[in-house]
């Protein structure tokens, strides 16, 4: 497959940005915005971005860093947004949980389920205009519990709309395990009752996720029907904030360690090395490149001006 380097690069773009956040969030207190990290979950966003075309649109929720960065979201705009600066992608109004850049087709809002029907509406407009673009809704396992998920799925299948539903099942809603919120059957099997294709994939194996998305997207683009992919993955850090939280009682260090062993970046790096596609030096270089860019973008953000208070009431209507 020719896209393996791109997948690694995008995952590193996300990881290095978030490791920068981990480094500076508590220390500097310059990112005053509740921050939901995707460390450990990068494969989904990276695979999605590589499988999509630039005109496709992605809609997501509170844990939006990965999708934003993968869908060609700008590093400098990202760091400046988290630091609340005028050069942020939304001039500091939106923060970490609303990362949105229409120029690259990424939209986010953190009320659970809020953007799922919006993705369906985007798909409706693509159909009306006879475009080949598709819309993607990315959401967590808890978000399927909101009524609006069922309503959106029903609308999409009834109207035969080109929507890819992507559920990042990381087993938890904040600190609540799946078992206290849903019946034991897999989510993708329950969604299948809606009469469109659904499948489940190892969300920490980026090559498998990529294949699943490629197949789904081909189907959606040409059959003009929805498709649902459940990606099994795991959030390594706390729900919101930069810290580890395996000592808080709701999950064990063993569980976290087990998933750390399935790190999507380490797995792809090993494959690329074993198959002699990239050398260790090349992989390290790619990692250093993003780390340096994250560093520069953060430094630049802190030197950027604050939004002007007078601008606050612009763009309300």
């Amino acid at each position, binding site marked *: 497959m020719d896209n393996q380097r791109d997948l690694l690069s995008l995952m590193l773009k996300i990881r290095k940005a978030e490791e920068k956040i981990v480094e500076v969030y508590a220390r500097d207190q310059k990112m005053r915005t*509740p921050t939901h990290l995707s460390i450990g979950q990068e494969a989904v966003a990276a695979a999605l971005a590589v499988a999509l075309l630039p005109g496709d649109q992605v809609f997501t929720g509170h844990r939006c860093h990965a999708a934003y960065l993968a869908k060609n979201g700008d590093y400098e705009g990202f760091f400046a947004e988290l630091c*609340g600066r005028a050069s942020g992608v939304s*001039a500091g109004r939106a*923060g970490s949980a609303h990362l949105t850049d229409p120029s690259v087709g990424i939209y986010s809002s953190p009320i659970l389920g809020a953007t799922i029907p919006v993705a369906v509406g985007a798909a409706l407009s693509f159909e009306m205009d006879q475009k080949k673009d598709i819309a993607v809704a990315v959401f967590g396992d808890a978000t399927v519990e909101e009524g609006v998920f069922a309503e959106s799925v029903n609308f999409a299948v009834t109207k035969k709309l080109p929507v890819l539903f992507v559920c990042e099942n990381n087993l938890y809603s904040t600190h609540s395990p799946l078992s206290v919120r849903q019946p034991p059957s897999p989510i993708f099997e329950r969604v299948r009752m809606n009469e469109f294709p659904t499948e489940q994939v190892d969300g920490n194996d980026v090559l498998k996720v990529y294949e699943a998305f490629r197949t789904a997207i081909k189907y959606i683009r040409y059959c003009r029907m929805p498709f649902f992919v459940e990606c099994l993955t795991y959030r390594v850090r706390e729900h919101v904030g930069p810290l580890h939280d395996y000592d808080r009682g709701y999950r064990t260090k063993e569980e976290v360690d087990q998933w750390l062993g399935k790190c999507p970046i380490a797995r792809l790096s090993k494959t690329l090395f074993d198959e002699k596609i990239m050398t260790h030096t090349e992989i390290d270089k790619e990692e250093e490149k993003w780390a340096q860019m994250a560093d520069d973008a953060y430094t630049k953000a802190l030197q950027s001006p604050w939004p002007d208070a007078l601008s606050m009431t612009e763009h309300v209507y």
Partner: protein
Amino acid sequence: MNRQLTYAQSIAEALVQGMEQDPNVFVFGLGVDDYKGIFGTTRAAFEKFGKARVFDAPASEGALTGVAIGAALNGKRPVLVHARNDFMFLALDQLINNAAKWKYTYNGKSTVPFVTRGIIGKGWGQGPTHSQSIQSIFAHFPGLVVAMPSNAYDIKGIILQSLKVDCPVVILEHRSLYDIKAEVPQNPYTVDFGKANVVREGSDVTIVASSLMVFESLKAADVVARDGIQVEVIDPVTIQPLDEKTILRSVAKTGRLICADTSWLRCGFSAEVAAVVAENIPQALKAPVKRIGFPECPSPVSKALEDVFFPSYRDIVSAIYAVAGKEPGVDIPNLQVVDSFKGPY
């Protein structure tokens, strides 16, 4: 000194005592039983009564509200908790179309007494969807009691009162009040709905303030007292029912009214208070009414914008001088800002 509790500790105690008094009371909502226990407010109840009466729930705010209604009409006393009141927009259909009009529509034959707690966020860039304050929506529709207690004493009494009455109650708790202490008696007690507190007496200007703005108003009153202006601060405790009498009595005395709310002005609680005065005692007003609330835009994330978006005692001080027709004789001091979010989140 008598026993002091924080606002959060007082909520925790009220829930435990309410559950002791009535075996039908149960607490549910997203994360109520986790280690953080809704900023410490539900943890004690969980530890005492276990998961049969304090339990987690799926992310389904609309359904949860309907579930509370169904349980309530069969004699249960649900307390449904939302970590942000913004999530209650997903519960509005059940709250407004069902709960608020249940008793009335069925001619009093069936009642649905349950409590919804929603927390108002502010600061640390919680932004457009996590730092709204949505009281006016609930107060607009007859049938819901809407309480916004401003201190640790009132919140306990309001919760215990809510667990006794015959109607649905919405309690909005400002997160910035959570760490503020007040004297709270150990024994259970109730605080009446529709009875305002005159938290500071004064003869020159009346401030009617909701929730956190009571706190800010008291600071402002201190500042202007150095300049000889005597401010009366009224805390309505519940905005529905509203204690119009206490408000009118005060404005009749001072002739000057400032309404300070934790939300936007348009069609809001501050507009309501101004209307009550304008309808009843327009002749008492010696100056135009001033309102304090959010600017006309959603709540932005950036610290630079938050600092101007959220009104504080400084805005109230300016409003006091304006209605009093005085030039400030003292500089507005930098008082410690009430911001329980010290970060990182």
